[in-house]
């Protein structure tokens, strides 16, 4: 083995996976809930497309990373 070989490990420490999964999914679900509440209570004219899209984008970022860490912490190393 070359003398300058450094071990590679995951960019996020292994021990954080379950905590990160729960936190990110919780945030994501809260923002999803606010998205759906906004959809349900606002009337047709009052709806703001920019607000909907940003809420959806932020929620999908949190949900995406949260589900990735959920998969990793449950043993499916994708």
């Amino acid at each position, binding site marked *: 083995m070359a003398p300058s070989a450094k071990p590679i490990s995951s960019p996020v420490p292994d021990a954080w996976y379950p905590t990160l999964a729960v936190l990110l999914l919780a945030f994501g679900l809260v923002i999803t809930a606010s998205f759906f509440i906004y959809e349900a209570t606002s009337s047709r004219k009052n709806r703001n497309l920019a607000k909907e899209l940003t809420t*959806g984008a932020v929620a999908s970022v949190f949900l995406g990373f949260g589900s990735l860490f959920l998969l990793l912490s449950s043993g499916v190393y994708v």
Partner: protein
Amino acid sequence: MKRLHPDLSLLFLFGFFTLFSNVCSDLVISKLDRQIDLSSQIVRFTTSLKLENNGAEAVSKVLLPYPENQGKNLAFLSVTVTEGKGKTKTSSDRLHVDVVHPEGMPPSLTWYAVSLPKELSKGGSLTLEVKAVFTHLLTLFPEKITQAEAQLVAFQDSAHYLSPYAVKIQSLTVKLPEPKVESYTKLENTKFSGSEIKYGPYENIPPFSLPTIIVHFVSNKPFSVAQELVREIEVSHWGNVQVTENYNLIHAGAELKGVFSRLDYQERPHVRGASALSSLVARLPARAHSIYYRDDIGNISTSNVYSDSAKTLLEIEPRYPMFGGWRTAFTIGYGLPLQDFLFKSQGKRFLDITFGCPMNDIVIENLFVKVVLPEGSKDISVVAPFPTKETRETKLSHLDIAGRPVIVLEKKNVVPEHNKKFQVYYRFSSFSLLREPLMLVFGFFLFFVACIVYVHADFTISKSSPSYIAKLQWDEVQTAVQQFQNIMNCVLVIHDKLDASLRDLSRTGDVQACKAARKNADAFLKELTKELKPLSAFLQSSPQALQIVPKVDELVIKEKELQEKLMLKHSMVVDSYEKKSGGRDIDNRVTAVQQKITLLRQEVDDLLEVIDEI
């Protein structure tokens, strides 16, 4: 009873030695010590040769021949230069060995040429240690046994070393698994003591003498042979190397004749079924986790794991004890931490992991090692300590778009000596790691976009039906009500600001600032009342808002009252400050008004809540 026939091919080699003695007379082996280890199904020859160069030229290659059946079954060959004896013995690194085909030699022999690190000069001497590992060299005799019989095997070789060079002194030691032997060929200078048979020392044997020796002994070690082993090593940069091994085992010992009695076996397993394969031990790296042992039926629970800081021992038992000729197939899987096996060096990443099977004493006829690298790996190359056949494949796994590159290394006739580390080099940019979470994010975003599209789209078929029109009207009413609520909330905020300015006044005594705040509040309130007018007009005119209109009107009236009272209070307080009357006076005057204000405020809040619920 069948007789053992000595292998006739050895006898034909007599004639060829006359050729040898002329061609290769430079080197002379002054002392030869052979040890044949027959304690398991894998036969290991350890030969220590002391070479002397009696010729005129320096010699750089040493030839090692093996007869036909040994050459076919040679699995592993390692030659080292040793110095010193006993405890001070040191070995050099493995020397390079090639297969050669010298001219004029019989084709049944397999020749290996060892390249010496330094040329052996005229008159110099060197000690080489040759370790050769053979499989399928022991013949079962008898070939079929019953459950109660012991397994007997026969081994055949020549007492004198087959070599193109003249040998001065040689000796042979055959090590048996148990201190008893069924029969062995007795030549001169033969001694059997303990579990070893010693032939020799023989001096200055004429070059064409190769007496055959046959040793017939009891070997109750199970002959576990894996006909096919597929090892899949999957690397995930998120922190895990998953190894999955699929075994197809056969007991290659003497076949079972007659019936298998489970009762006999369980009562006295060492007598009835001494050569059965009942358990296997696999030596896994330290910190192996999530170990499973299953087959096509399901999980096999007869297993144990003992782990310490240097290794993890997995002890498994097949579903049934295996007798000669019986087969079984199972899968073992385990996960390893990434930082123990993946390293970075000079811009490339490499995986450093063992090649062979972690079980000891198992012979593998066909070994396939598949290394699955994450998607996006480029410039893949393999460095292995022995030759293998390499092919490429793709594997589609979790969150993959095109598939992961797989390198398949194939090797035949693998023994535990092959369990050395090999490296797979590749390039991988760290950003490719983000591809997986971004795919998930994109997937969720598509879901939200779909929701937005669904809510915005109008799917009614008939746009003039009364229910549709009613729904549209109700929607408009709702819009108006929400805007009304917004305005009311703004008004209340302004009221709160006025109160805050009064509190500031009591703190700082700055009357001018208070008056300025009052002016601002007045201006805002005027604007908001103006905005309120068209909304109430619309609500009055729409038929759907019958319930809401009275509440809205009430709210407007109450709010007006509240506003008036608040303004009154404000003026009173400001005047008092200008007149510089005491704090107590101010409080007395203001209390009556304040009570009304709080009452009205409460009512306004209640009404707002009611409107909200509609």
